[in-house]
């Protein structure tokens, strides 16, 4: 029996990686915490809930079906572990949790980590109210349960997902209260030429989504600044300053927020992959070669978990990483195919750079938030709470960075372990200490990757 190749994540990246490996005669072990393959973008509703691919994925239907079909054909050649969370990696051992209760361990020789992305959010006064969620959360509700998050939903943020989700809500017949884009129309228009040059198809999709929204007369505010969400049990209204600086009150009963995505990097971090701050993506990124190879022997990264690039790029990166794994295993490598993948990856990456510059994280909005705004929702730490520490510590015990700030304030110490607030805490710290976000640091991850239950475990059976 040849030593195992593990793949974490059965999204576009993981599925394509599996495909390349299976063709080369390797039987990879594929772990996904979800019920079914497809990953985030092509997430499927639970069995009983049937909707057509067209309804679910719109313009992406063909691609979604393709990814699902590839996986269906592959499945019998895989050691596929659905509903299995990988919660720790130590050396060549994975620690798993299946079905939320059964703990296990698995070994691997090479691993492709493709866990996708999470929403990048920013706190706002009122964002801890029930009924406020992320753009991604709102989309998942729609894809998996076919429900909107409210009767009058306001979408706030920037980036392609904002417009796509608005489009999907409208297509699903869910009423939108408004779309609030923090990027201005002018800025988008300026960049669209560059984007057309980069990836015309994707850019045209964006134009199409925008057009349908305008046709449906959805109130659109561009270059706007969200000020607060107000309500008692749920959101009642969203206050913004519109593109012209006027106060606007939007009646709504639910709000979804999101400023693009950031890679889900906790597994890579725990596996020991080094990180670097990427100025263009404004994010800490696990360092890897274009092939997905990292400084840790046997550990490869692919898809949005390594660099936000969207589903198409994830497919390319997954396939590329699989070839790199085959290379490490001494198997035949189709160099022509590798070259083709790398050319395509380079092109996608260049396009993404343009997108990232076009939709920068609006740190100036963050800087303008009232001090009492809750920054870390798990631990209830306010912006003022974090800044107080900076003040006390800057005088006393420099140097301060985000892990130290966490130790003093509990910011990022709760259930989500800083997934939500880690980057905003670093941004605020950087401003306060007048240093770069790089110097402000990044919250270090520890296992478990996601919360795991305290249940009696018989560890004898585990390696």
């Amino acid at each position: 029996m040849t030593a195992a190749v593990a793949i974490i994540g059965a999204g576009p990246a993981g599925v394509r990686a599996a495909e390349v490996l299976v063709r080369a005669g390797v039987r990879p072990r594929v772990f996904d915490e979800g019920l079914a393959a497809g990953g985030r973008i092509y997430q499927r509703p639970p069995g009983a809930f049937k909707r057509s691919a067209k309804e679910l994925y719109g313009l992406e239907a063909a691609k979604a079906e393709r990814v699902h079909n590839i996986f269906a054909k592959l499945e019998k050649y895989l050691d596929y572990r659905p509903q299995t969370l990988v919660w720790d990696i130590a050396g060549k051992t994975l620690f798993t949790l299946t079905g939320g209760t059964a703990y296990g361990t698995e070994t691997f020789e090479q691993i492709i980590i493709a866990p996708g992305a999470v929403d990048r959010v920013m706190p706002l006064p009122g964002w801890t109210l029930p009924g406020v969620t992320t753009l991604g959360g709102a989309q998942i509700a729609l894809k998996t349960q076919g429900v909107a998050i409210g009767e009058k939903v306001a979408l706030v943020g920037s980036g392609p997902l904002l417009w796509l989700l608005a489009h999907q809500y409208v297509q699903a017949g869910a009423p939108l209260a408004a779309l609030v884009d923090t990027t201005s129309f002018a800025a988008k228009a300026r960049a669209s030429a560059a984007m057309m040059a980069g990836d015309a198809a994707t850019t045209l999709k964006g134009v199409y989504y925008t057009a349908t929204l305008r046709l449906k007369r959805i109130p659109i505010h561009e270059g706007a600044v969200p000020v607060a969400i107000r309500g008692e049990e749920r959101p009642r209204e969203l206050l913004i300053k519109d593109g012209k600086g006027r106060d606007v009150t939007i009646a709504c009963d639910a709000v979804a927020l999101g400023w693009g995505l950031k890679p889900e990097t906790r597994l890579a971090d725990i596996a020991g992959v080094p990180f670097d701050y990427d100025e263009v993506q404004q994010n800490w990124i696990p360092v890897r070669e274009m092939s997905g190879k990292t400084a840790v022997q046997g550990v490869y990264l692919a898809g949005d978990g390594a660099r936000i690039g969207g589903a198409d790029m994830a497919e390319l990166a997954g396939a590329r990483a699989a070839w790199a794994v085959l290379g490490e295993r001494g198997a035949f490598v189709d160099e022509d195919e590798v070259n083709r993948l790398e050319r395509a990856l380079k092109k996608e990456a260049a396009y993404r750079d343009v997108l990232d510059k076009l939709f920068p994280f609006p740190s100036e909005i963050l800087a303008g938030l009232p001090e009492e705004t809750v920054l870390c929702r798990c631990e209830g730490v306010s912006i003022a709470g974090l800044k107080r520490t900076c003040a006390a510590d800057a005088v006393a015990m420099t140097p301060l960075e985000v892990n130290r700030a966490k130790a003093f304030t509990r910011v990022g110490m709760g259930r989500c372990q800083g997934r939500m607030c880690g980057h905003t805490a670093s941004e605020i710290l950087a401003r306060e200490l007048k240093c770069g976000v790089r110097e402000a640091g990044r919250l270090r991850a520890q296992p478990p990757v996601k919360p795991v239950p305290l249940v009696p475990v018989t560890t004898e059976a585990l390696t």
Partner: protein
Amino acid sequence: MTPVETDVVVVGGGGAGCSTAWHLALRNTRVVLLERGLVGGQASGVNYGGVRQQGRDPAELPISARSREIWQKLKSLIGTEAEYVVSGHLKLARNDEEAKDLERYLEVAAGYGLELRYLPEKELKQEFPWLGPKVVAGSYCATDGAANPRLLAPAIARAARDAGADIRQQAEVVDIAHDGDTFTVATKEAVFRAPVLVNTAGYWGGAIAERFGEPAPISSFSPNMAVTEPIPYFIVPNLGVVGGDIYLRQIDRGNVIFGGGRGFGDPERVRSRPSALRTMESFALALELVPQLKGVEVIRSWTGIDGDMPDHIPVVGPSSTTKGLFHAFGFSGHGFQLGPGIGAIMSELVLDGKTPTPIEPLSIGRFAG
């Protein structure tokens, strides 16, 4: 580089070192504390937070009692008590053998004036009805409790600085020389000269002792820790067991912190990581103590690096080879509670040449020859 002249150089800014610098500064001594990373960044900042006397080796009890006096006054002394709570420490037995062990310790404790209350099963369960069926007896120390390790050493360091100590972080000592009278201590950026050197470098203190020809058979020790999401507060005392394979406490925010077994430490690279297997093993042990915790979600696990001596008690006292050198390291997994007292003792050793607290059994000479 012009050397900085001072009275005392303290190497290592954990609880022991910060407290030493603080106590020396309070007595108007010029002191420089050199810390490789951040004060309290190692064992002193990441430990379980148990502040207990119960269960300690008799050799440690006098220091522990001394420390407790300072713990009680922390707020007035350094402006914070670092979330110190006197919540009690309940040490549990899970079979008759362990219960006998608890009974035996009662006498040891009594000899040192440490008050314990033995609780046979019935009384124990009446008082703490949430304990599991496997627990058969307990020994309760009302004066013990817990504190937040992340806050203590930095707060003491601040107090030390306010009292005049020169606290230097990110100042790794890379070389130490001694000419018979004066120590020359070098970091990458500066050189310090002083007649007295205090070695409070934790696990790494062993190498400093070796450097002065004193064998210190230290090994690194990484207790494995984990914490759950918050749940309603009901576990008031800090829980331990005979044998120490599990310990558990709840903070009033609701999170349950538990530890047991060892993680992995790499003291050369100053890295440590928890062991997933140990974490899972402690699930079952924790549930034996408090079955109600079943299903509660664990959100983080971690460990750190402490120095462990072969007899599991620290090295505290003057060097046996070198005039002006003093040691306080190798706290063997239970030095958080001792830190405040250690500073008082070290300042006395340095300035008075003696301390009223008995420390003979902790002398480094015990490992010689």
